[in-house]
């Protein structure tokens, strides 16, 4: 009953100057290190030309850092308040590209806003973290034990994931599902419920496979993932060439701009989805492990922030965006190494392109905001009041 309507200590207790002083510079240094490796790879991917990709990517990076810091200054209370409206916007846009986009834009997954492309599924990744953090924040541990309170958040995850899967974007749908499941798990949803969902999921996938919900090319990707040699010149070509490139890199790599697989066009999408392959070919095992280490440090950083934060909303938000980052780099690297199917997920901060960069930068911005306000509480019910 008596759940507090006003947050304790949630008052905008920090002035802007105080917040600026709190900016986690070590996080920015880590991000910059990863991004710099990306610049070097883009320079190499263009055969030693900075204009082709690297310079544009640097501009994006600078803008991204700016956005990150701007979001980092936002009050947590405010973030909690816009969670539902933002989710609603993202959801409407998803529906828009699904139903209107199909007609007018082919299989296009983004909305062209002249200056940049808005990809609703990316917006959804962020707003889903926010909305789930917001929802679970308002529940006590006991309440989470009640099955019916999980109906709403489950729909909050499944509806957008289903729309994205229909687009069709297997990778992003998978990321939404896994990130959602991660937040459910961190929020304390009971183990056995995961077991049920897992069983239902298996049954659902079998059903989807047989019902024609998946496109033929998606099925083909799954099949060639299981046996790439079946189709060495078609869909399996990506995986095979990627493994050749990675493997031929050896321990020390062939050197920047010396990767024959990448430089001679055997490697598809070398500047975007397969940039880690090129990195592995040119910088070897050493370069690959360095990148994995840097990403792991970023994840550890995010976890540390989540653990140190007092508000449940902040904890779950920090965990959610960190989970997102982890999924991004794990899916991408596992995919180019041939561990999972090729699903078209870029390597954040390194792959050429602004979309993934913006998503993780906004995520780092949220992480920064949580970090700065780690000792403040957020009200259980933020709507209406304040």
């Amino acid at each position: 009953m008596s759940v507090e309507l006003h947050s304790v200590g949630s008052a905008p207790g920090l002035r802007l100057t105080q917040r600026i002083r709190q900016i986690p510079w070590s996080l920015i240094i880590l991000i910059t290190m990863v991004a710099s490796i990306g610049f070097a790879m883009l320079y190499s991917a263009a055969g030693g030309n900075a204009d082709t990709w690297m310079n544009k990517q640097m501009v994006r990076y600078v803008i991204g850092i700016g956005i990150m810091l701007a979001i980092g200054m936002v009050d947590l209370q405010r973030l909690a308040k816009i969670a539902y409206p933002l989710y609603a916007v993202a959801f409407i846009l998803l529906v828009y590209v699904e139903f209107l986009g199909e007609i007018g834009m082919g299989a296009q997954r983004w909305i062209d806003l002249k200056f940049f492309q808005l990809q609703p599924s990316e917006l959804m990744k962020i707003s889903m973290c926010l909305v789930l953090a917001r929802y679970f924040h308002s529940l006590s541990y006991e309440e989470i034990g009640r099955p019916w309170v999980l109906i709403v958040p489950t729909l909050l995850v499944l509806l957008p994931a289903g729309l994205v899967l229909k687009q069709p974007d297997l990778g992003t749908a998978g990321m939404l599902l896994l990130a959602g499941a991660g937040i459910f798990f961190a929020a304390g949803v009971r183990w056995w419920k995961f077991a049920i969902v897992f069983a239902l999921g298996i049954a659902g996938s079998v059903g989807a496979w047989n019902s024609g919900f998946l496109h033929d090319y998606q099925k083909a990707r799954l099949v060639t993932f299981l046996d790439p040699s079946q189709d060495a010149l078609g869909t399996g070509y990506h995986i095979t060439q990627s493994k050749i490139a990675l493997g031929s890199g050896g321990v020390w790599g062939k050197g920047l701009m010396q990767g024959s697989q990448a430089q001679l066009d055997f490697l598809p999408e070398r500047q975007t989805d397969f940039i880690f392959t090129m990195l592995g070919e040119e910088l070897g095992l050493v370069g690959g492990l360095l990148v994995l280490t840097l990403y792991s440090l970023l994840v550890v950083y995010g976890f540390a922030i989540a653990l140190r934060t007092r508000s449940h909303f902040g904890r779950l938000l920090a965990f959610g965006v960190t989970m997102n980052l982890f999924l991004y780099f794990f899916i991408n690297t596992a995919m180019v190494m041939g561990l999972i199917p090729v699903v078209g997920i870029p390597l954040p901060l390194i792959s050429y392109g602004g979309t993934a960069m913006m998503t993780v930068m906004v995520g780092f911005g949220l992480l920064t905001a949580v970090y700065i306000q780690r000792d403040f509480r957020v009200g259980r019910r933020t709507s209406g009041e304040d």
Partner: protein
Amino acid sequence: MGRIKQQQQQSQQKVFTRRLAILGALKIAMVSALAGRLYYLQVIEGEKYKLLSDENRINHRILFPPRGLIVDRFGIPLATNSPSYRATLVAEQTPNTPATLEAFSSIVPLSERDIARALRERQRTQEFKPITVKDDLTWDDVNAVELNLPDLPGISIEIDQKRVYPFGGITSHILGYVAGPNEKDVENDTDPLLRQPGFHIGKNGLERQYDLPLRGTAGESQLEVNSFGRVIRELARQEGDPGGDLVTTLDVGLQQFAHQRLSSEMAGAAVVMDVYTGDLLALASTPSYDPTAFYRGLTIDEWQELSNDIYGPLTNKAVAGQYAPGSTFKMMTALAALRAGISPDDHVFCSGVTVLGSARFHCWKREGHGSQDMVNGIKNSCDGYFYEIARRVGIDKIAETARMFGLGSAEGLDLPGEKPGLIPDSAWKKAVIGDSWHPGETLVAGIGQGFITATPLQLCVMAARIANGGYAVKPRLVRRIADGSQNDEGNPVFPSLEVPENLLKILRTGMDMVTNGDHGTAYRSRIDIPGMEMAGKTGTSQVRRITMAERARGVIKNQDLPWNQRDHALFVAFAPVHAPRYAASVVVEHGGGGSAVAAPIARDILIECQRRDPSRRNPNAEGGRREMP
């Protein structure tokens, strides 16, 4: 706030922390899996993938080895390679392919067909690969194109090797020609060269017979290519081994002479052979064909015209033409009789007609030759004499002797398409025709008619074995291959046929009388240059049956018959008569009488042969010579 709420928050935080620890551990495991996978791919499997990446990157291009030359016995080239200039176009280097083709056409005219073919090839070719605009440019064309290159973006001149036959049709039946391999060739041969566009293999004649040594082995160029096959740079280059040269036994001067001399008639063949070594100095067959036409590719019309030509330009008549030997076979009948113990001095009376049962056999001389012994029988080519001795000896003995002298089976010459001819006997007739041998057929066979056929090459070998004292000389066309797989160190040694010399001498005397005896059948074609005299034997073989009625009316003269019903004219010879060195045979298809048509040709060829090169009789060559009694 209350304690309950605080407890709730604490438990919430505890759960969160615990769950994060679990997830953290899971993530550590997952990242470790990634690192392990990297280690597996890059270190454990690294070498394998390095190889695969090189296979991707490196394109092995086959380099054509230059084809071996074919030369005559004096080193005069018969088949050589010469550069051929080809204009090519790389589409990506020109803003407008049709416009460039048009500009090219204003310098070197292109036909509509050339342009259409080039545009079609362009459709099928990646834009950075050259397409052929025009083949086989003249040197003037090349200069004109080079001069105008600035106006011809994308055009360049490439140099290919083409096969050249300086003597053209004169040697085409011996050398054959080269052309692109067909599907069957590729199937039966694993040489990667055959899978290269523009590579040619020997398709006929010596080019085919000795294709492997002439071909050489492929070189290889390692090129770095990108995934579209564009060449980035050459990494390594290994030249192949050029093909070995082929030294033939031919004397191309004599070959040329024989060919031209034969060309006075519609169709025929002439063979000249060294009676001791078996070296073929000339092997002519007319009419002949232009080998370069096959090289560049015949149109269907051209092919039809060649293959339907009644004079048979595509057939090498010297080895594949099978003719009834006619009277040139009489030496075999005579020798069979001698070996059977019939005395050469036995006389046979020729009245012009020989009767056997109800059948009548006519001598070519209506009124008959009167009493004839063996030498005179040969000299006069008296059919009556040979009917009689053939009847006495029987077909099987005649056949046995003929086979000893090279008739009835292929000589094993290193040339494709050699035919075996036919020497019949009673067993053969039983087996093949299914009928028993009639005595009358023996008479016909005795004068080289009926079932008997022989090639000009076989007739030459027969003459050579008579001339060389009965050694089983075999003909050959190739003295040496530069790769060492065959060489002419020392002359080949042939086994004796074990025919007593005195018997062969009777044949030689008879042949001497044919040309040099007064009223010999080829007396008019004798060689009267001292030391060059030839001995020979005429032959005229009927290709049609003369009926009783016609014989009664008077046999129709050859010139009144259509060409393909006229008699074949044949002549076999050797020279010099007292120290034989060369044997020759001449067949003129449907030429008429052997003495009138074939003998003069043989005479001229043997004069030319002996005149051409006395140095051929050098001490080394003498070494192979066998003693003559």
